């Protein structure tokens, strides 16, 4: 068993001239293609007993974050459309003002003492996950003049194989900053880029409480044919 290679243009490069932080951090040597072994096809068994879940980032006993409440739900699938059950999904984000609860974030926007901006959920047997939070704000960064990151939530996912490990970002529909963002636009294929944008979803929306967004995530699927040894 091995996981298939990404479809052409669907993954960003390491060397992206328009994203300044890649300049000194991208390898100059080509990556060495290796056959997947048990090491890559197995994965740590992340489970709620070891990693406590946080379904609501915006509210706890005696506190509630400032901002527009949102519910985010979606399915984690593989490339064959099979649900990935028990996947650990970690999310982190800026507060409603566009400020991270992080000592290195120097953006002069207010911190919210009631918002840490970090959560962790697991997918169910059908691959569904769901959490509640507040809509993050856009924030400036120093990549180029007047650079602002579009509104986004960071995602970290663990599948059934370490080769499926994924960190990505979820964006919001209709954000005018998307067209200007080097990180979003580093994904060459426009369709692959659009799949990083969540969809407003009335079925996920909670009456009198929170707007709903749908964001599905696809992890690498299994290769039909075993990969030949390139060495």
């Amino acid at each position: 068993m091995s996981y298939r290679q990404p479809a052409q243009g669907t993954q960003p490069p390491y060397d992206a001239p328009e994203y300044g932080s890649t300049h000194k951090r991208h390898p100059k040597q080509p990556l060495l293609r290796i056959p997947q072994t048990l090491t890559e096809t197995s994965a740590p068994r992340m489970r709620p007993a070891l990693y406590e879940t946080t379904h609501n980032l915006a509210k706890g006993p005696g506190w509630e974050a400032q901002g527009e409440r949102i519910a985010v739900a979606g399915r984690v699938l593989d490339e064959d459309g099979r649900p990935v059950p028990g996947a650990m999904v970690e999310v982190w984000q800026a507060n409603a003002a566009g400020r991270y609860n992080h000592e290195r974030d120097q953006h002069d926007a207010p911190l919210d003492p009631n918002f840490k901006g970090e959560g962790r959920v697991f997918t169910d047997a059908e691959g569904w996950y769901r959490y509640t939070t507040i809509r993050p704000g856009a924030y400036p960064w120093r990549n180029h003049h007047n650079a602002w990151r579009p509104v986004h939530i960071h995602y970290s996912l663990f599948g059934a194989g370490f080769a499926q490990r994924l960190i990505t970002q979820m964006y919001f529909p209709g954000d005018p900053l998307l067209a200007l963002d080097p990180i979003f636009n580093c994904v060459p294929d426009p369709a692959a880029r659009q799949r990083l944008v969540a969809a407003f979803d009335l079925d996920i929306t909670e009456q009198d409480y929170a707007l709903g967004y749908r964001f599905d995530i696809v992890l690498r699927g299994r290769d039909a044919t075993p990969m030949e040894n390139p060495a």
Partner: protein
Amino acid sequence: MSLPATASQTAGPYWHLIDFPEWADLLRSSGPNAAIEGERITIEGTVTDGDGAPCADVMVEIWQADPAGSYDGDFHGYGRCGTDKDGRFRFVTLKPGPVRAEGNAFQAPHVVISLFARGLLKQLVTRLYFAGEKLNEQDAILNAISAGRRGTVLAQQAGDGVWRLDLRLQGEGETVFFEV
């Protein structure tokens, strides 16, 4: 078949919101491996960039087999560590055993290292092998690396139970990173 995998995006500079420093100690007393026996080791090193400057905001993750070389046992072989201001990371774990490979072969003991950071649009993946290990000579992946670069994945013993491997993202002595 018809659904391409979701695009990777950088972890950015603020991933520390999901940094739980205790995860760097796989043998932590309240953790899943507290009762598992094996050879206790420390894995440490630095991450530097193309200028040789320390990378102070990297999420270093490890994934490894248990002391018997199995991924199916009770041992939870996952750890996460953020680099400090000098680009240093440090894990406490048990030394992995040889992992079964094709046929009757074994892979030499190894630890997968993944790096996520600002400036990395997707993770960089490498392995740490232990210098002097007998099975290293027969390991198919080590042997796929040119002799001149093999040292970039060989941790050297730097004290009792301490194994050191420095990772260089770019330039002279650049670490061999894998496409898996």
